């Protein structure tokens, strides 16, 4: 009963998002459009971690490793080929392969929870250090200089597929980025409804039980991790397309932590949450810098602290629960399961955990 409602709501939301993406360029000025283009590319990054963490149970402190690798792969390839089409492909492929290698190392080594976090963190720090020390002339790939701390300026932005002379306008870039965000959201939704998606959630829920049923948790986690890496890499390409620039600070610890913050604020275990959290925080950070009264760190820090204490579940789940409660009140009838609430509820059930067998 609730399942069709949920599905309808999701479809309506996606349609609405499509309309917004389509119409936005006619209502806001170029600057805001470019700003939203940036936010959308960051939201893709947020989705990648939101997926592997919320639905695969993998907390990666180093999602920026894939983001940065994607960005650098794109930049190097785009400079060398002059065409963004294969560069985008490489920006997805290389981080995915890297995720495959790293994931094999980690998951098949039976490393879990905090230790996984530490390994991903150190890998990111290694990449940061390595890319940071590429300032010398020796670090040139084809015609692309990696440029060390200063990074690579003036990277070619997206062009029409296989038509390098036809470079996308900011409006077109917006359509591509916004469209990509929606497509990835829908893709992940579909994936989560597929048998594989449900197995992934099962592994996240209870790894031991999944193994005792004959599922190989290592393989499932590895696949989830690789998908997350590929999406993060793609986000990297979108990011470079926005700023025409990539530098090693993309691997910085602060960005890694920021992604985690987006997800915590938006709501872990949902797909909309990371997107919402990302938009909110990015907007906030950019607004803070335009005022001169108070130190920016102070404001951001205070907001985060207050948030954790007051809204620990994150925005989206809190609002959803609130709406559900309202709906129940309005309908004047209490639903099954209310009595069971309050004790031993491990998880309210993430949005993706729809009952199976519906099809």
């Amino acid at each position, binding site marked *: 009963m609730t399942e069709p409602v949920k599905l309808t709501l999701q479809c309506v939301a996606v349609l609405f998002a499509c309309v917004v993406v389509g119409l936005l360029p006619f209502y806001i000025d170029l600057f805001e459009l470019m700003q939203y283009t940036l936010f959308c590319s960051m939201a893709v990054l947020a989705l990648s971690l939101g997926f592997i963490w919320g639905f695969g149970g993998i907390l990666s402190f180093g999602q920026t490793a894939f983001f940065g690798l994607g960005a650098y792969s794109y930049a190097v390839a785009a400079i060398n080929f002059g065409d963004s089409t294969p560069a985008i492909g490489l920006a997805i492929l290389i981080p995915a392969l890297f995720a495959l290698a790293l994931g094999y190392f980690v998951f098949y080594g039976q490393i879990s929870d905090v230790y996984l976090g530490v390994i991903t963190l150190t890998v990111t720090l290694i990449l940061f250090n390595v890319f940071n020390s590429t300032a010398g002339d020796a670090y040139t790939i084809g015609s692309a200089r990696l440029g060390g701390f200063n990074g690579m300026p003036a990277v070619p932005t997206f062009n029409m597929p296989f038509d390098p002379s036809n470079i996308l306008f900011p409006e077109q870039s917006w359509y591509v980025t916004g469209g990509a965000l929606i497509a990835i959201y829908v893709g992940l939704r579909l994936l989560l409804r597929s048998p594989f998606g449900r*197995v992934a959630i*099962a592994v996240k829920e209870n790894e031991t039980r999944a193994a005792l*049923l004959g599922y190989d948790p290592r393989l499932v986690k590895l696949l989830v991790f690789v998908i997350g890496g590929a999406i993060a890499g793609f986000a990297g390409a979108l990011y470079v397309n926005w700023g025409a620039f990539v530098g090693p600070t993309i691997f910085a610890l602060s960005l890694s932590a920021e992604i985690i913050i987006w997800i915590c604020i938006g709501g872990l275990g949902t797909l909309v949450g990371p997107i919402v959290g990302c938009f909110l925080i990015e907007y906030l950070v950019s607004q803070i810098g335009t005022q001169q009264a108070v130190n920016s760190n102070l404001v951001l820090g205070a907001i985060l602290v207050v948030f954790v204490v007051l809204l620990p579940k994150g925005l989206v789940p809190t609002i959803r629960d609130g709406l559900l409660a309202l709906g129940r009140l309005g309908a004047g009838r209490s639903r099954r399961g209310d009595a069971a609430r309050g004790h031993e509820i491990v*998880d309210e059930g993430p949005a993706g955990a729809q009952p199976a*067998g519906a099809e």
Partner: protein
Amino acid sequence: MAEILPLLQTSHLTMRFGGVVANDDVNFTLEEMELRCLIGPNGAGKSTFFKMLTGQLTPSEGTIRFRENPIAGNLPHQIARLGIGIKTQIPNVFNGLSVRENVWLAARRAARRDASAKRAAEIVDEVLQRIVLTDLADAVVGQLSHGQRQWVEIGTVLAAEPELILLDEPAAGMTDEETVRTAEIIAEINKTRALIVVEHDMEFIRMIAKKVTVFHQGRIMMEDTVEAVLADSRVRDVYLGKKVAA
């Protein structure tokens, strides 16, 4: 060839944790289609034994043979795929998923062996009826009572259609009525499959058991029919002594 091999055979199976010996030189044999009960006080090594059989622990020494396959030290999912299913002592289910999804996840692996996707849905419906949770099929398992989750776990074990089913205290926390139904289901399963059941409830054991193995301090103390075991004074001492101490 296959017919003369027992279904499950362990030899010299030993598990040590640091200085503690949880299982010591366990030689255990289970025939095809057999139903065996394991009893023994807490800490006798029954759960450790189950964990080694299912691959959650790698034995320090000794071998486990499931039909012709040596499985000691294999990973849990590999052993599960060979056809050993387990219901663990504490309900071990997917709390965030619905009842139907829990069962479906198990059925899907079974169905995969049969190479038929439709079969999975059929198995789910059958099993849901069998564990009498059809009405709660879409409820999130985490919100169910302890007993109901117990049933969900039994359901997942059934749906996976394993060759050998390990049940660790299946009747714990169940009402008398449910206990009877559990016994019935076990008898029914046993028509086609082998089971090993760990249980403390002697009434329950009487209901289902043919042959009983008694664990004590990590070793097999005796192995005989229900009547013989329950009549044995050593078994009484072990149990009663333990109970008084607890």
